């Protein structure tokens, strides 16, 4: 009995040792996933996180729990899928055991324990990673959230129990899945017949795939144009759906139809095929591609998804940040009624002022046909002179069209967070002033959109000086070193100054007859034509919230992107490493008959390059549609290229590592 158990132990040890390179990659990828899962899980419970981010209440805990659950789910699918590669690789071994008289249930049990051992090792390393890197990741989170707080390492009993539970359940399920797979191998026995190139099927399928991909690209071009209609038309949504379906189906058909066929054609052109190692490598790569088409397709679509996610995240963050910047350009802003009180308070707390600004504005009545709302509008508008506008910091003009001293600029609210309407306004009537024929467009309000009501107009200096005003006001803005330092008590005091005054607009038959009535006291009854002028505007807690939220968001997105990259990279690497026995033997044969190592290395390099390059090229083409969804065509600037570039570089790094390991594996077989 002891001898038998020792033999089984040796069999498992031998199997693990034979595929050690592949197992190391799989175990490291799993450990990474387990470590991240543990870190996310334990972060929500961490007392220092609760203390540092107390005003996020349960948000951090909820998000961490949801994200860790989501992460665990995808990690489990990855493990179940990739673990199957190893069982498939051992097919011949299992069949030999059966031929030698080993009972089926023993072979199945061996496969069960082999999986359980690998999972256990992955969990031990994963949990060690959790303990080692929890503090580092926590500090990274705090750094990204710009929170100055010490992150304490913490792993609660509850979380530990959950981790152990997940370990036990997942290991049991994965081992059972592999045991069932082994059973199926032993029952079927027959090897899969070799897939043949069926030209009559592949060529039309590939051609249809190309048509689908081209039509997806054309549709993407239309999407750039149509996306702005998304708020009132179903067309962009239909286009997005069409592009997605075309890309998914088209890519598979192109892979299925053309990848082996191209090599098949090359193989038949004797002047190319009968030259050097091509005679072998075309056939070898064709065989490998036959085996890996589905995986290449799967990796392509997931890479496209990863790139699309990064694009969404980038533009989402940009939109929020842009909105915040146009709403709160100064750390503190005030008007002429509140400036004295604010200055007094700032003086009291010795805030270090970095810069202070002051701009006179006029408020007058205007009427025009609004193109965006498609209505005739009459409203009060704040006017600012061109030179005053230019004297403000550059960041105030970030979202506005450029104007010269003779041009007009209308600054208005962005109707959508994402999509900007870049059309000029025409024929704006101003009370007792010349009509403005054309005004350029912008959304960055100097002193912030919340500082006053309605749109703002930047006008040439002469126009400004001559124009009459219903109300005149002065805006003040401050930037500080290390914030305005206003205490809670001071803020409570300032609260009564939030509204400076109220304006009631009496609209009559014409603009000339209409007027604005200024009220110091809050009206008892609000009417449609009553507007409020803010007394002051403060970035304060909103800035903090934005930075922290942005940091947390960046942390999660970065984790998920890296995890996705690790998963995809390892799947491809494992597919390359796990060659069939006879495929490895053929490389050895080449060496025996005098093929130089560098030439064999060239075959491995070509195989590796093809496997990694094809998905990323197709994925990048598909992810282009994600950029189109934001209608930021002319903003496909450095940042998104950098994001894509970073992803491609990391992905390429995986390709390089994969090639190194693959060549090492082949070389080891050469010396046998």
């Amino acid at each position, binding site marked *: 009995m002891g001898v038998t158990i020792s033999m089984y132990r040796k069999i498992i040890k031998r199997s693990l040792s034979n595929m050690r390179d592949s197992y190391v990659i799989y175990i490291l990828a799993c450990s990474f996933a387990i470590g991240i899962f543990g870190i996310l899980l334990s972060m929500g419970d961490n007392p220092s996180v609760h203390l540092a981010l107390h005003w996020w209440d349960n948000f951090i805990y909820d998000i961490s729990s949801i994200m860790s659950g989501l992460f665990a789910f995808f990690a489990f699918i990855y493990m179940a899928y990739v673990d199957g590669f190893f069982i498939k690789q051992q097919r011949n071994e299992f069949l030999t055991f059966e031929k030698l008289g080993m009972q089926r249930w023993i072979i199945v049990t061996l496969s069960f324990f082999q999986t359980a051992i690998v999972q256990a090792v992955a969990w031990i390393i994963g949990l060690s990673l959790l303990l080692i890197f929890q503090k580092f990741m926590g500090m990274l989170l705090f750094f990204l959230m710009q929170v100055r707080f010490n992150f304490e390492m913490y792993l609660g009993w509850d979380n530990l129990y959950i981790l152990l539970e997940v370990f036990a359940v997942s290991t049991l399920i994965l081992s059972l899945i592999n045991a069932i797979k082994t059973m199926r191998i032993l029952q079927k026995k027959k090897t899969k017949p070799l897939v043949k190139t069926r030209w009559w099927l592949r060529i039309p399928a590939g051609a249809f795939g190309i048509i689908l991909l081209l039509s997806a690209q054309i549709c993407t071009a239309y999407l750039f144009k149509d996306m702005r209609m998304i708020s009132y038309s179903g067309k962009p949504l239909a286009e997005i759906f069409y592009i997605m379906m075309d890309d998914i189906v088209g890519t598979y058909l192109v892979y299925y139809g053309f990848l082996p066929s191209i090599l098949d054609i090359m193989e038949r052109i*004797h002047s190319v095929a009968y030259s050097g190692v091509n005679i072998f490598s075309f056939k070898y790569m064709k065989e490998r591609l036959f085996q890996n088409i589905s995986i290449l397709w799967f990796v392509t679509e997931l890479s496209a998804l990863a790139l699309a996610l990064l694009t969404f995240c980038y533009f989402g963050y940009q939109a929020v940040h842009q909105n915040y910047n146009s709403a709160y350009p100064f750390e503190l802003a005030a008007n002429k009624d509140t400036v004295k009180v604010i200055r007094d308070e700032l003086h009291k707390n010795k805030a270090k002022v970095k810069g202070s600004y002051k701009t006179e504005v006029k408020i007058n009545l205007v009427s025009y046909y609004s193109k965006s709302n498609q209505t005739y509008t009459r409203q009060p508008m704040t006017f600012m002179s061109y030179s005053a506008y230019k004297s403000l910091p550059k960041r105030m003009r970030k979202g506005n069209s450029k104007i010269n001293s003779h041009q007009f600029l209308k600054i208005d609210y962005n109707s959508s967070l994402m999509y900007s309407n870049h059309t000029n306004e025409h024929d704006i009537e101003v009370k007792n002033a010349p009509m403005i024929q054309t005004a350029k467009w912008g959304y960055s309000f100097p002193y912030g959109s919340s500082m006053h009501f309605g749109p703002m107009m930047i006008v040439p200096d002469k126009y400004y000086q001559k124009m009459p005003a219903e109300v005149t006001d002065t805006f003040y803005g401050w930037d500080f070193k290390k914030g305005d330092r206003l205490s809670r008590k001071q803020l409570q005091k300032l609260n009564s100054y939030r509204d400076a005054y109220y304006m009631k607009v009496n609209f009559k038959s014409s603009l000339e007859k209409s007027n604005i009535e200024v009220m110091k006291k809050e009206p008892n009854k609000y009417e449609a034509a009553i507007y409020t002028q803010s007394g002051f505007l403060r970035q304060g807690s909103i800035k903090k919230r934005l930075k922290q939220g942005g940091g947390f968001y960046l942390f999660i997105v970065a984790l998920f992107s890296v995890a996705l990259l690790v998963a995809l990279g390892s799947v491809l690497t494992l597919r390359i490493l796990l060659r069939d026995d006879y495929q490895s033997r*053929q490389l050895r044969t080449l060496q025996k008959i*005098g093929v130089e190592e560098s030439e064999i290395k060239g075959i491995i390099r070509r195989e590796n390059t093809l496997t990694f390059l094809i998905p990323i090229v197709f994925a990048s083409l598909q992810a282009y549609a994600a950029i189109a969804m934001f209608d930021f065509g002319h903003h496909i600037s450095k940042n998104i290229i950098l994001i894509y570039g970073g992803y491609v570089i990391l992905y390429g790094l995986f390709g390089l590592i994969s090639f190194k390991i693959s060549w090492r594996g082949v070389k080891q077989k050469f010396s046998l």
Partner: protein
Amino acid sequence: MQIAVKNISKDFGKNKTAVHAIKDISLEVEHGEFLGIMGPSGAGKTTLLNMISTNDRPDHGQIIIDGLDLTQLHDRDQAKYRRNKMGFIYQSFELLDSLNVKENVILPLALNRSNKKLIEERFNYMMQLLNIENLSARAIDELSLGQRQIVAAARAMINRPEILFADEPTGSLDSKSATILLNYMQMINKKEQTTILMATHDAFTASYCSRVIFIKDGVVFSEIVNPGNRDKFFEQIINMQRTIGGGDYFNVSQNY
């Protein structure tokens, strides 16, 4: 003299577990000679052949072919030399399953980037010489073992190697196929003046050689030169095998 092997030795493993596969062997082979290397299993036949054919490096000693010391060459140059001057026939055929017969046979020429006309000419010549024209489009797994070995021989000979190495070429063959292959090898040896080095433990196979050396425990034990009569030579080989052990009289082909 074409090949001069001088005091080569090779160990496998380290320290206490080290096995001395070859111990200080020296030998010479003339141009156009058909040399047999015999000995019991584990005697070092394949190791010696692998070292002479540059598939393995000796720990000590020199291997000089046509005045060139191959042990001093870089791996890359050895591979080139191997590809241009040598041909190989293995017991396990070492044919590439993913290629068909024609592609397998022309592989050495294609690797040398020979022009298409020469490839076709040499291929047709070899197929006629070995009488296997009908096999050219067949896949490897559609061939019998004997046919596979003849295809392997065709591949080994297509680029007119100066030296042909054969490691147990008849090991996987039945007696009829073995006889056919050996006749071909003898014909090639005579027609093309190719030097052949063949490792075998089979006396019948060895009787086709012009000279046979016997290895035991990593050293050359003795050698017999073919007197011109194959029956007599066969008897001499059998006697020598009896002397050194490991041989088997009943290993002799029934068709002999």
